[in-house]
């Protein structure tokens, strides 16, 4: 678990370890998907966060392939827009998860958030 400002550089960190494994051939290409909570809170643009993750992976040259959520997903980003956290990890099979957790709201109205890794992240 990290407690850092949500800059783009942090989106990519969960991808780093699986990507290194890919150099050893364990995961030729990391298949990454996104699951949304439903986005009923307009204060947070989750589509923009997804785009940030995609761009981060591209800039960092990560060996990843973004696919629609399904049985082939190896790493799933769970995107939540409020502390209720409706994006759950049900029916994800063996996929690892990286969860955007909103812990509350700061005094300036901005979300207080962290990326939380699932137990089984490689």
């Amino acid at each position, binding site marked *: 678990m990290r407690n850092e400002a949500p800059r783009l550089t942090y989106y990519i960190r969960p991808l780093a370890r699986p990507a290194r494994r890919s150099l050893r051939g364990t995961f030729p290409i990391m298949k990454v998907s*996104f*699951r*949304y*909570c*439903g*986005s*009923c809170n*307009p204060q947070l643009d*989750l*589509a923009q966060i*997804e785009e940030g993750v995609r761009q981060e992976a591209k800039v960092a040259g990560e060996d990843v392939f973004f696919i*629609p*959520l399904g049985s082939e997903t190896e790493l799933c980003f769970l995107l939540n827009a409020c502390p209720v956290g*409706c*994006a759950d990890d049900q029916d994800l099979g063996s996929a690892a998860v990286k969860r955007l957790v909103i812990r509350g709201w700061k005094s300036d109205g901005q979300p207080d958030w962290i990326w939380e890794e699932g137990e089984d992240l490689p």
Partner: protein
Amino acid sequence: MSLMTAEEYRDSLKKLRRTIYFMGSRIEDVVNHPATRPHVNAAAMTYEMALDPQFEPLCTATSHLSGNRISRFTHIHQSTEDLVKKVKMLRLIAQRTGSCFQRCVGFDALNALFGITYETDQKLGTKYHERFLQYLSYVQEKDLMCTGAMTDPKGARHLAPSQQKDPDLYLHLVEKRKEGIVVRGAKAHQTGAVNSHEVIVMPTAAMGEADQAYALAFAIPADAPGLLYIFGRQTNDSRKWEGEIDQGNARFGTVGGEALVVFQDVFVPWERVFLCGEYDFAGPLVDRFASYHRQNYGACKAGNCDIIIGAASAIAFAHGVAGASHIREKLGEMVHLSETLYSGAIACSSEGHKTPSGAYFVHPLLANTTKLNVTRFYYEVCRLAQDIAGGLLATMPSEQDLRDPEIGPLIKKYLCPGTEASAEERIRLGRLIENMTCGAPLVEVMHGAGSPQAMKIILLRQAGLEQKMKLARRLCGIEE
């Protein structure tokens, strides 16, 4: 997956051959006619968002019949979580349309009939629920938009259906045949009727034995022979022919696009009849539908309030008064009112319960309280928005004058607020506030899903006044 795209929805409407009148003429193409196009766009948003991964968790659900992913608007609530998701979805969509997207009426009709057909069968040994399940599967598989038709014209309000001078003032049975029934009458104020695929008819009130012929529930395709639609007028609707800015919300319009639907001896096959003469179940069906529908108003109206609050805040910035304490006070009050509505919708959903059919039902007392609040709070939100926006709301020049090469520069000069905002931005915000706070939307929040008195009746029925009196007596020392 049985989900239509927004374009497939529009195309499917073009295939329906129905009779719609507006201003003395036939509307041949509801998708492109200026009067109906905004309402089609608003309903199309429900299809578009269901296919967007970002909104899919709220806008879709897993069918308990087929296990398939379906639109939430065709889903039967399987838990209180489903009821909460419904509320969140409605607010979410309203934030994008700023107007009614119409599909909740059919949604509530499906859920009400699911429970009531089951309970009717349990008591009377009828086979309505089985028929209804077949119909529900069809609606879910095809991702159809249904309009829920409940409100009869009613004639003299103090008389029961069977006592009316003209029997057609409540929709009624004309004939029973081997293959089905024939019905006649009308349903008024039907939201989304001209751009739905199916019409689901329910009785409008509790009924007695003498009203058997009026205790009817059924579904028919929207282009069934004998159906005729008379599309209603709205405040400032002629602006739909006059450009974009003056409409305020040109893409999605305002409220739902209501119609008077006339049933001229319409034939309904038995497999689509869900109640026929069982008058004991007319009242429960009305109550079930009404409470589901009143739940909605704390959701979609909170979504509309989000837009109104945003527009009021933006126009305060444009006027350079956003920091004034009285403006902040008013905006805070608007947020308080809006979130109170939303709180009610969430509460009646969280406190929902399982019915004998397995479907979940909202807490009716809380749902009716929510809608009653809407009839007051939404007006106050609109009043405050108009207060903040200023008198220009009622005196703004037209888009034509703004675009005129001679007059336009004068408008841009004299209506420029002197801040970073332009005169056009100021006018656009003003028109949006006008669109959402004047005329038809106010009447809609007052009477949509039933007039305030209908809620008061349920409030008093459910409040447990006897128990409250006991509590008071005990506390002040009066012995029972």
